[in-house]
């Protein structure tokens, strides 16, 4: 399932407040693109625009070439920052939410989810309630829930922001492996430059509000098997510095209108 996401001259306002301005971005089929930027620069709004929950004030959004809100909604799945697992459902039923929503029986939905649980090392946790799972485990289940929506485009909204540093590192490795196995077109929003450069093929840096694209960087070591080696390679470190400088300059630029 390979679908592109295209944003052209995208501008969005909430009343008087312009949150995104003139965004041009093409996410190629199967590409993982990171979006970093200071708080309040409209990163999350960008995802809502892509998945058809918001309509842009001006400009154009398309998922797989289709611009209608219903088509965008049909083509993309959203993973929120907090896992938002439903506490009354077992992990596997949480993951199988999309098939259930589409009318599958509980058994049929579980049958769809089970292979993924086995493949991603969650088989032992299928029956566990969310309250019994660690933060990292909960995010894994939340990611499988997003995958099981069966949509070609995944929109990840700071999925690891609430995890501690060690768990976050583990989750980055896990996600990079998952994306190697299940290639999808991804928009990955984060405020962590290092995380973006490790997980994404390309990273877009947004300025402070109104968010504009101030830099686009290609990552040489996207989803490398050896995370530690990738993160300490001189090329990666240099790129991270460039991204941080762009982020800092972008924050200043946004602050003075």
């Amino acid at each position: 399932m390979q679908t592109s996401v295209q944003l052209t001259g995208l501008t969005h306002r909430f009343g008087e407040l312009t949150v995104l301005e003139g965004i041009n971005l093409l996410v190629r089929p199967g590409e993982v693109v990171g979006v970093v930027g200071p708080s309040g620069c409209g990163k999350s709004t960008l995802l809502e625009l892509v998945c058809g929950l918001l309509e842009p004030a001006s400009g154009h959004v398309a998922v797989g070439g289709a611009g209608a809100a219903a088509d965008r909604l049909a083509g993309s799945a959203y993973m929120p920052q907090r896992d938002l697992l439903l506490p009354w459902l077992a992990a596997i039923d949480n993951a199988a939410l999309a098939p259930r929503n589409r009318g599958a029986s509980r058994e049929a939905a579980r049958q769809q989810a089970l292979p993924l649980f086995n493949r991603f090392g969650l088989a032992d946790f299928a029956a566990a309630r969310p309250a019994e799972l660690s933060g990292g485990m909960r995010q894994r289940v939340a990611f499988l829930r997003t995958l099981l929506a069966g949509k070609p485009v995944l929109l990840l909204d700071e999925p690891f922001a609430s995890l501690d540093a060690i768990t976050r590192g583990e989750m980055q490795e896990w996600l990079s492996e998952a994306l190697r196995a299940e290639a999808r077109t991804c928009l990955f929003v984060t405020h962590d430059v290092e995380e973006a450069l490790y997980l994404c093929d390309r990273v877009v840096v947004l300025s402070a509000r109104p968010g504009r694209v101030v830099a686009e960087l290609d990552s040489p070591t996207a989803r490398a098997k050896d995370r530690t080696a990738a993160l300490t390679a001189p090329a990666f470190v240099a790129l991270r510095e460039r991204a941080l400088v762009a982020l800092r300059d972008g924050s200043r630029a946004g602050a003075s209108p």
Partner: protein
Amino acid sequence: MRRVLLPVLALVGLFGTWEVLARSGALADLMNLNDTAGTVLVPAPSHVAESLWEDRGLLSEHGWVTLQEILAGFALAVVIGVAFAIAMHLSETIRRAFYPLAVASQTIPIPAIAPVLVIWLGFGIGPKLAVITLICFFPITVNTLDGLRGVDPAATRMMRTLDAGRVTMLRRLELPMALPHFFSGAKIAIALAAIGAVFGEFVSADEGLGHIIRQAQAQLLTARVFAAVAVLSTFAVGLFALLSMLERRLAWWGPGARGR
């Protein structure tokens, strides 16, 4: 242990003091009531216990009538209250139009309209159900609606991209999320239902605990009044406990089910 011991100690302390003060006549003196002709105007807890035993036939017969009214009225209030909450949640128009009216309905003085209800609904169970439902639906509606409206917007967004339609969203996300809130409202309502039943019976009954209380008052049988109230309180406490148990089973993830 402390859970049982503390309320028991409080109860023993309170009733012990009351017993001593009432038996010694101190309470009657305080109120300028001199017990004469064997009539106990200020009963001690032991008088009430005596009445509970001696009038057990009367109290159980009429208590059963009141309990049925409480259960039926509460059930009706749950159905109406939840339906109303869902309607107000789904339609902004309905909410804006009817929420103020729902609030206003709670300012109706029940003793004022109870006789009118009797005129409309007759002397049967009708007016009692109407009174109970009128005061019980409100906490259920308000709490359930708060629960429905309090669902995390990020969860709603997520469910929409997971192909949930309006009905699916309500069934899979919003109603379960509102369940602990519903129980908060229902627990308030069940205590109100007991009061409502007696209010209804005051006006138009020849049976029920309210009827017993009114009769006993007229005959200055104060111990029996307290005995009937004790039965009523037992109903309310028992039903409250039942609801709490149900909450722990059905909404075990909610705040009301934790810890206690």
